[in-house]
């Protein structure tokens, strides 16, 4: 079978993802580009006698080196040398989209333009002369309607037509005018002397990028044999152009591209009379309103939570049942003993803790995908930016913080990828775990129920949420004022027109993110569960000891824990937790919470000889805590504070490590910084509280 390699490119909001889904169906592979946190999506299509591999590149506005996305997009085109580039164009926004095309054209690969949303242009009364456009640019053109799956077949046919043609169509070159062209030629001539460089990169593209003073390309030429001549020529050319035009060369180059584009548009496009923004404008008048904006935002957020929690409840129940059922099967199939304990408590129990949470995450992903695809999320950034920047965060930080609240910090940290500025992203990633995730809620619920009057329970819970926000915002402010001091970062973002999302698109988006979460969480949790199981199970106490005869099975369990490695570790760290009001038992509970926060409860359950504890309704554990004279409300409160702030669960730490670019430094800051802060807050609360009461 003959093979074709396709790169799929396009502006954000051009409908690129929809086209990718139409082309490849569900046969997609999602991964990561090595070294960067940009998603890598690929799909394989078998069409006629061809096997077509489609690489979906990140949606970008340009191919400069401003963001990781842009660098990845152009690196893939240059290194992988796709046979054909399929670029998706939002036909209702021809000018902005063609600007990107002018940059693609310089990469010297054959191009097919998928003119998407062609139906909307028709409806608005616009006419695009495709034939002329194709001729001017030297590219193939296929009108498409992504959400109705129109034009997909034609794209496949065009791909094959292009591939089968012997001398392929290469796009035309932008005319930058004599002055700039002369400098491009001078640089190109030097590049051609280095055959290695000339073979690897399109020489004209490289020359233009050098004139633009592109950071990454400046770095690239350092390995060239012509590095000195090139650098001198580059500086000379830039200087010459600056003197000639009175502007930076990059401005003049962008200016020529826009000039070319607007020339093309005036030739091929008959603009509709109506304003395509009319509906969007009307909605924005309300949604971005100075007074109404914030309440509407709050309502949308409330809607997302309401949807997530109401509708995921039965599914979460089914998942719990499945794991219980699996545990039951394993218990009956495997004879009692170490192996059974390992499979039931270690593997199934550990996985169940995280997977039980999975449906809720999926529902939240769905709700968020809905608001993203309608275009509202960009407006939410507008509303929140003012508040976020006051606390050293970024307008785009609100989404991660929201995902973590009652949800999970793992997808939240992955969601920080939309923040382009590295410092802003790091601050957001560091403070996100302070939010009260779904696993911390049952801890607080248990201790509030056990030690505070029922009528104040809701108030105490609310207080915990307020504290989480105060701590998160306080630390981001502190980080921004100290370690991340410097030039403030900027917000530039397109506000796409409002659109009605497709169910297929939403489901695929939900599944894609869910799968990524599952893969990361699943593997790590399995590993940690095994380690934890070993820690709590070994060394085994002698079951045949006569003195144990008088004890119940639960009491033996508690004794086993105290004598296990974990129990010994608990005793070892007792001096550290004593000042915050805890003994070895609290110590182990906190240690076990590193695996996953809700484990804190099940550990207490085992310590208090409860056997199995249902974390949703730990009635008997509540009574056991109340009856234990060691505990009091002050201790409970400082314990809750510690749980709120200290080291995030292991999965979060692992994902943080990867998303921070494998930074050991920042991962240590996360692990030790949070724990130290937790200890200090808890210590002060306990000691000062002790003086008052």
């Amino acid at each position, binding site marked *: 079978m003959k093979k074709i390699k396709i790169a799929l490119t396009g502006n954000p909001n051009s409908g690129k993802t929809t086209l990718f889904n139409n082309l490849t169906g569900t046969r997609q592979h999602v991964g990561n580009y090595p070294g960067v946190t940009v998603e890598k999506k690929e799909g394989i299509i078998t069409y006629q006698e061809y096997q077509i591999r489609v690489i979906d590149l990140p949606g970008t506005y340009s191919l*400069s080196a401003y963001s990781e996305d842009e660098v990845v997009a152009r690196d893939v085109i240059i290194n992988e040398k796709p046979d054909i580039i399929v670029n998706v164009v939002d036909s209702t926004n021809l000018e902005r989209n063609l600007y990107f095309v002018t940059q693609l054209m310089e990469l010297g690969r054959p191009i097919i333009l998928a003119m998407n949303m062609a139906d909307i242009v028709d409806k608005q009364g616009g006419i695009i002369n495709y034939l002329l456009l194709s001729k001017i640019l030297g590219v193939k053109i296929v009108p498409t309607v992504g959400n109705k799956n129109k034009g997909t077949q034609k794209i496949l046919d065009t791909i094959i037509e292009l591939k089968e043609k012997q001398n392929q169509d290469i796009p035309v070159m932008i005319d930058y005018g004599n002055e700039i062209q002369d400098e491009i030629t001078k640089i190109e001539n030097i590049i051609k002397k280095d055959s290695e460089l000339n073979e690897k990169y399109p020489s004209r593209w490289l020359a233009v990028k050098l004139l633009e003073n592109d950071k990454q390309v400046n770095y690239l030429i350092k390995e060239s044999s012509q590095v000195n001549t090139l650098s001198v020529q580059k500086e000379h050319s830039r200087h010459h152009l600056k003197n000639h035009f009175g502007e930076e060369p990059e401005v003049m180059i962008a200016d020529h591209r826009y000039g070319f584009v607007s020339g093309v548009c005036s030739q091929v496009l008959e603009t509709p009379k109506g304003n395509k923004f009319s509906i969007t404008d009307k909605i924005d008048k309300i949604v971005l309103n100075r007074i109404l904006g914030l309440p509407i935002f709050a309502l949308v957020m409330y809607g997302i939570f309401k949807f997530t929690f109401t509708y995921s409840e039965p599914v979460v129940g089914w998942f719990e049942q499945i794991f219980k059922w699996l545990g039951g099967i394993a218990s009956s199939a495997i004879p009692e003993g170490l192996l059974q304990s390992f499979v039931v408590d270690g593997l199934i129990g550990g996985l169940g803790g995280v997977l039980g949470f999975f449906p809720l995450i999926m529902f939240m992903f769905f709700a968020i995908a809905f608001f993203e695809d309608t275009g509202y999320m960009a407006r939410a950034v507008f509303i929140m930016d003012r508040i976020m920047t006051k606390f050293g965060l970024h*307008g785009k930080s609100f989404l991660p913080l929201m995902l973590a609240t009652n949800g999970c910090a793992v997808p939240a940290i992955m969601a920080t990828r939309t923040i382009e500025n590295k410092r802003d992203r790091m601050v957001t990633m560091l403070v996100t775990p302070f939010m009260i995730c779904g696993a911390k809620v049952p801890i607080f619920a248990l201790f509030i129920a056990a030690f505070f009057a029922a009528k104040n329970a809701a108030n105490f819970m609310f207080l915990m949420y307020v504290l989480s926000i105060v701590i998160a915002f306080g630390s981001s402010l502190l980080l921004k004022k100290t370690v991340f001091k410097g030039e403030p970062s900027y917000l530039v*973002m397109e506000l796409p027109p409002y659109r009605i999302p497709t169910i297929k698109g939403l489901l695929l988006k939900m599944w894609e993110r869910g799968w990524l979460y599952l893969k990361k969480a699943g593997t790590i949790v399995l590993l940690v569960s095994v380690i934890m199981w070993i820690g709590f199970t070994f060394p085994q106490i002698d079951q045949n000891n006569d003195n144990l005869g008088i004890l119940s099975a639960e009491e033996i369990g508690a004794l086993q824990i105290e004598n296990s490695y974990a129990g010994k570790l608990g005793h070892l760290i007792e001096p550290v937790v004593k000042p915050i009001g805890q003994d070895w038992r609290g110590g182990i509970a906190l240690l076990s919470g590193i695996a996953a926060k809700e484990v804190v409860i099940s550990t207490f359950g085992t310590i208090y000889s409860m056997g199995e504890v249902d974390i949703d309704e730990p009635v008997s554990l509540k009574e056991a805590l109340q009856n234990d004279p060691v505990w009091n409300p002050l201790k409970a409160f400082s314990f809750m504070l510690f749980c709120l702030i200290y080291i995030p669960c292991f999965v979060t730490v692992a994902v943080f490590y990867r998303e921070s670019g494998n930074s050991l430094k920042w991962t240590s800051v996360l692990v030790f910084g949070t724990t130290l802060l937790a200890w200090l807050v808890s210590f002060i609360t306990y000691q000062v509280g002790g003086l008052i009461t």
Partner: protein
Amino acid sequence: MICKLSDKKNNERVVLINIKGGYGVYQRLLDMGLVPGVTLEVSHNHGFGPITISLKGTKIMLGRGLAEKLIVKEEKNSEKN
């Protein structure tokens, strides 16, 4: 009259003259169509927070800090449409 984009009110049409400093996002702004000489219209400026503008058929949101760095002048009456 020459002033900062952030000082402009809703529905005012202006011409971008230049971008003061802020080289970190310079290329980005060019890529979004904010090339000196371009005409743009302010859609939402609350006097606080980001502002939104429309140009070349798209709407763009700019953080306030950035809008303060964009120097603009009023569009000439003859060019108004």
